[in-house]
């Protein structure tokens, strides 16, 4: 029973990670591609972490490391996306739509 639940979370997580990667290929320009890694993958990783938590806890050792992974991911994912976007805008990387007027 527990194995089944863990499997469902694993497949769910892996599915979302896959969708994030597909997005990276399919979306038209750099700025839209940024949305893949910041979003679809957070839920993907979430699924895998819940599976890991259930697995280790069911073996008798309470495992809460995963909460830390979640916390650090939520802190770092927006920062890396922000840096990438800022650099891209600074270099005026091609976009499907007109780039905004932006001076600091």
């Amino acid at each position: 029973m527990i194995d089944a639940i863990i499997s469902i979370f694993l497949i769910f997580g892996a599915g979302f990670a896959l969708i994030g990667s597909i997005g990276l290929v399919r979306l038209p320009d750099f700025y839209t591609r940024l949305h893949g890694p910041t979003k679809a993958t957070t839920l993907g990783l979430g699924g895998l972490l819940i599976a890991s938590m259930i697995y280790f806890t069911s073996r008798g050792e309470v495992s809460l490391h995963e909460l830390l992974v979640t916390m650090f991911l939520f802190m770092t994912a927006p920062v890396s996306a922000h840096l990438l976007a800022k650099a891209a805008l600074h270099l005026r990387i091609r976009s499907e739509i007109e780039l905004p007027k932006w001076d600091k």
Partner: protein
Amino acid sequence: MKLLKRLVPHPIFSFVLLVVWLLLNNTLSAGHILLGSVIALVLPWATAGFWAEQLHLHKPGLALRFLLLVLWDITVANIQVAKLILSPRRKLRPAFIHYPLDMDNDFAITVLAATISLTPGTVSIDVNGDHSVLLLHGLDVDDEAALIAEIKRRYEAPIKEIFGC
């Protein structure tokens, strides 16, 4: 009381450090609680010089509610973005959005920008020099004014209330 305040200048920060330490080691043994407490006391003190300003949680209860709301929104955001990615040949309507900020505090703006990046179809790119405009990129924007109003109501208003700025 005064001595306590000098010893523990950032109680919340210290508490979080202790919890993180115990989670890292996955234990509640006395030795690690002691070691974690030492780290939790020394680290805030050693880094105090780098802290630009002190920010107080005015409403911890609201902060918790806000966290749950954001977690829920992240789940919804993931499913929405997954749909957008998988729907065949649907024309996306990406847009750059100038989002007018109503607050001036660095930390509060950082929290807002991170929240925006993690939630439905938007990534924050940059903030301008005088903290009045946040530049966002939307993946599929239907109505720019509605999106700005939604972010203001759903995220910026609670953050302002939580930090009291």
